[in-house]
């Protein structure tokens, strides 16, 4: 019987997905488990496998089409079977009830598929790498380092072809080097046969890294000169989304940035204390960023203009703080949301922020968690940035940039004393907020951070 394949629903708020690539064409024979097409939501990429074997009878959409979820994308069945009932839009043939049934079935199947990797995937070292048993077998056989694999399977799962790609790229380990290699914290580049990591690479990771870098810097320009002066790469959809959002942000808002610095002595010493006692008290690793999130989420409710969505004709003021936390990932910038941050303890904030960031880096983040922020914090302090102009995530009205800490000096009763200072850069939308209220928010935030223990006591 002919079976339609629908655009899966990835998360409850995702209404449509962009079909990015077809792996099959009309008339192809497919087996259960073959990849049919790749698709992306705003911020995550997935692939759809065939759930039945048969022939691709019809394809309804092209690459690049934005397809509503649960819409029929293609039909698999026996040659000669009638596909007209499955034509999207032409669904008038079908009874509405029947359609509902299909939907329900699809949901179930999707859930099954999602459950499968977790159950079937043998746990990697950190228990978090999702990999199909077939891919795992192949990786073991050829000595491929699955940590290098870019998952292209559904739900960020590594599938066989990801391992094949690794093999082509040479991320292999010799059998002698394998055990020690897998225990390394940092993968080292291989310089052996076919790019395999050898025991020699293990004993001199630093040397290997340096010479690899050298190959990069000296050989690359030379190499490119031989072929072309540049490499032209098509934008990923994630990049396109970022590009569009950032450009809209700057072209449609009236953004400006205020900078302020504060005495970070208290939060630095608190962080030290927390760190020292983390184990004893069962606390997460609480970072300065977590402390910032805590403070901002406590101060924001009394500055509602900054915890809002500017909708053009209206403004939505939020009762709770849903904190967007900018995360740098290999795919690009991602901003997961820490919902109701103002109601969470510092330890909770630390734990949940870390989980969100990890999920983003692994590509397993639910699209629902990439929406709904009411304010955003972005931290470039680790890179030593002293001040910058963060770009607002529309329709939010403000974003706080966190900068590095640096030693400053002040005069107090005729004595010059050094202290650690940290600076903050607040970009706000002047359409929604005026300068003075924004400045007042920063002043309150500064006071709160300089007297953080008082804030904690509240």
């Amino acid at each position, binding site marked *: 019987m002919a079976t339609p394949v629908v655009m899966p629903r990835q998360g409850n708020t995702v209404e449509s997905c962009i079909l990015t690539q077809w792996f099959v064409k009309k008339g192809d024979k497919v087996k259960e488990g073959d990849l049919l097409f790749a698709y992306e939501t705003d911020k995550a990429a997935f692939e759809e496998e065939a759930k039945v074997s048969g022939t691709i009878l019809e394809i309804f959409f092209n690459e690049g089409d934005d397809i509503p979820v649960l819409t029929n994308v293609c039909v698999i069945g026996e040659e000669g079977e009638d596909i007209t009932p499955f034509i999207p839009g032409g669904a008038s043939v079908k009874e509405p009830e029947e359609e509902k049934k299909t939907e329900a079935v699809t949901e179930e199947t999707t859930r099954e598929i999602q459950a499968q990797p977790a159950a079937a995937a043998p746990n990697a070292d950190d228990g978090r790498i999702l990999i199909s048993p077939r891919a795992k077998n192949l990786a073991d056989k050829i000595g491929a380092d699955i940590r290098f694999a870019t998952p292209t399977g559904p739900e960020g799962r590594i599938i066989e072809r990801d391992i094949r790609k690794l093999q082509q790229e040479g991320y292999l380990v*010799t*059998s*002698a*080097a394998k055990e020690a290699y897998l225990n390394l914290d940092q993968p080292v580049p291989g*310089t*052996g*046969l076919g*790019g*395999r990591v*050898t*025991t*020699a690479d293990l004993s001199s990771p630093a040397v290997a890294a340096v*010479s*690899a870098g*050298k*190959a990069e810097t*000296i*050989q*690359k320009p*030379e*190499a*490119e*000169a*031989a*072929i072309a002066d540049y490499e032209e790469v098509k934008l990923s959809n994630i990049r396109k989304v970022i590009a569009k959002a950032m450009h809209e942000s700057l072209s449609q808002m009236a953004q400006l940035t205020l900078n302020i610095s504060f005495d970070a002595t208290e939060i630095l010493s608190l962080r030290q204390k927390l760190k020292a006692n983390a184990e004893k008290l069962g606390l997460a690793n609480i970072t300065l960023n977590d402390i910032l999130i805590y403070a901002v989420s406590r101060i924001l409710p009394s500055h509602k203009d900054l915890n809002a969505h500017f909708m053009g004709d209206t403004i939505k003021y939020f009762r709770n703080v849903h904190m967007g936390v900018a995360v740098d990932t290999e795919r690009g910038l991602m901003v997961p949301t820490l919902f109701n941050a103002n109601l969470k303890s510092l330890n909770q904030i630390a734990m949940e922020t870390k989980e969100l960031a990890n999920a983003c880096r692994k590509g397993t983040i639910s699209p629902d968690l990439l929406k709904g922020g009411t304010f955003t914090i972005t931290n470039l302090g680790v890179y030593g940035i002293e001040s910058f102009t963060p770009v607002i995530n529309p329709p939010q009205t403000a974003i706080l940039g966190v900068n590095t800490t640096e030693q400053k000096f002040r005069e107090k009763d005729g004595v010059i004393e050094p202290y650690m200072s940290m600076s903050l850069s607040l970009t706000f939308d002047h359409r929604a907020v005026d300068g003075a209220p924004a400045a007042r928010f920063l002043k309150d935030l500064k006071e709160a951070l300089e007297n953080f223990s008082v804030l904690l006591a509240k």
Partner: protein
Amino acid sequence: MVDVIYDLIVIGGGPGGYLAAERAGHEGLSVLLFEKRALGGVCLNEGCIPSKALLNSAKIADYAKHGSKYGVNCENVSIDHRAVVKRKDKVVKTLVAGVSMKMKKNKVTVVNGEAVIQGRSADGFVVKAGDNEYVSKRLVIATGSVPSMPPIPGLHEGYRNGFVLTNREILDITEVPEKLVIIGGGVIGLEMASYFNSAGSSVTVIEMLDHIAGPTDREISTILLNNYRKKGVDFRLSAKVTEITGSEVIFETGEGRRSVPADKVLVSIGRRPFTEGLGLEKIGVETERGRIKTDEYMQTNIPGVYAVGDVNGISMLAHTAYREAEVCINNILGKRDKMRYNAIPSVIYTNPEVGCVGETEESAKEKGLDVEIVKLPLTYSGRYVAENTELDGIVKVIMNKKYRTLAGVHMIGSYASEIIFGAAAMIESEMRVEDIREIVFPHPTVGEVLKEIMWEL
């Protein structure tokens, strides 16, 4: 003036040069190759290949002479040296033509002439040959090496009047010298000793060190020495040649001054990189005692200028040059590839043959590696026993104890030259002893001892 700017100019058409040109041409680069003599270089024209033609004739003669040991009686066995040389020339000609064809197939322009680097222009490096100038964005220098000619009194005069020979001349002499003295007991000296011993010369090898075959595993080289002593080659070890007169070679040993009479003298004390008159200084290429310094991507200190093969003086073997050429071209093409020298096999085509790869017992000790050393007589191989009467061949494995991988494999005996690549592959891929045990070897072969010895570890 120049209407073509090449992607690559290769100077020298030996194994390193022609392979670099071939690979680059295959990848679509426009390539110009200079060779001042004949394509194929020393290896093909006056080294590896012609000597193999000679040695095979010697081997056939040896079998025939000692055929009775195998129940085959031959009488009046002799080597017709002129016929051997003639056949050798034919072999060389066939193979040189083959290299020519490869160049043509890969659209490499070959210029017969001596190339001199002139300097740089806006378009790249300028190279002159004859009256013509050529320009290229990159250079691969593959000018190879020449025999070292030590300042021994009488040596240069002897070379001029044909009494003293190098590997080039000795392959073309038409008469077998009655008394041949070979200065230097390395690979070239031993192979020539082997042939001329079989061809009827009375051969004396004078070697400065207390052993032959250079860095070859000492146990192996001792077996080889004993074999050739048995065949009648006279070895004078720890002996320093002090003078060459018109009819004899004078040398000093611990026992004093000695001399051996000679009809011809072969000088084979080693080879040195050839860079004279190449114009390297015009573009500032760094050299060190005549060799061009390269990094592990075969690049010199000047970006865009590479050096492969003997001219960089690292491992003067044709197959090293091949691999260096590949690494060089891969890096030019932007494929990451790094030169590894830890599994380069070396072979001596004497009878018995010697095949070695990796660390020797001596070098492992010197480097302080934690190794286990085992050896087996080749009599563990059924085929070896069935086919030989002298049964002194051995295989020796140096195992890295930390990973249980092979650090070195050394063999002396029949087919060792053809077996050793397998050991090199095991070292390159870092197979563990346990992995090798799983490999199926054909039976009965001599190579099987490699599997057999894994059960000694």
